[in-house]
């Protein structure tokens, strides 16, 4: 079971869809990929779509928090969407639920980053 990272762009929003399992092993891959994409200097905002993420542990919290810090430094916004209940529990437990903005679907998350559809 690995992790797949699918990347799309809308204006200055980087849309990242994760599917599979996000743990310590696969978090490294996500971090490198997103650092690469963000270093291109195209995007200031980030939407993380977790709809097809079937497993996550504290390593996932770490990598999401790390990208939030990176995006905040760029002066951008980060929105997380389509989080499954089991993963939602982890965000709640860590208090990150209050830090990031969560949305039901990708369109709403993109709009929250200031891009009209």
């Amino acid at each position, binding site marked *: *079971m690995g992790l797949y990272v699918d990347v799309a762009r809308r204006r200055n929003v980087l849309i990242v869809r994760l599917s599979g*399992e996000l*743990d*310590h*092993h696969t*978090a*490294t891959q996500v*971090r490198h990929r997103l650092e690469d994409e963000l270093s291109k200097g195209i995007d200031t905002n980030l939407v993380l779509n977790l709809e097809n993420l079937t*497993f996550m*542990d*504290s*390593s996932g*919290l*770490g*990598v999401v*928090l*790390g990208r939030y810090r990176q995006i905040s430094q760029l002066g951008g916004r980060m929105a997380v969407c389509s989080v499954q209940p*089991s993963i939602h529990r*982890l965000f709640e*437990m*860590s208090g990150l639920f209050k830090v990031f903005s969560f949305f039901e679907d990708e369109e709403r998350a993109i709009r929250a980053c200031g891009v009209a559809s």
Partner: protein
Amino acid sequence: MSEVHKNFMELSFASRSENESFARVAVASFISQLDPTMEELTDIKTVVSEAVTNAVIHGYEEKTDGVITIRTWIEGQKVSIEISDQGLGITNVEEARQPLYTSKPELERSGMGFTIMENFMDEVAVDSREGQGTTIRLVKHLKTHQQTLQH
């Protein structure tokens, strides 16, 4: 009166990060003989992942020649899991168990591993000796089917 169902398994593997998913899947499939709920299975997978990841990152500092051992006991609906390493050990267990405490913030750790274990399991015990290693003991009482049906 029928006897209580008892079972046991033990598993040792190298301290490589790719074994984290193997370990949680192995424990989950062993537990599945108790017919757990999806939520119980996810809880167990998550805590095994936390403890094994801690052994890899903190116990062995990502050196791949360490050994991690997992023992799992089943007794009726009670599941006991022990995860051990012979790594660096924890100097201050009290501090380590605090929510958001991490000794490795530079690695993007959130310091939530122990908090997650405590939330998902009924008992969490930490036995650690500096320079000798760490053993985490976790216990969870699964709901019986009758209890599940009542809810």
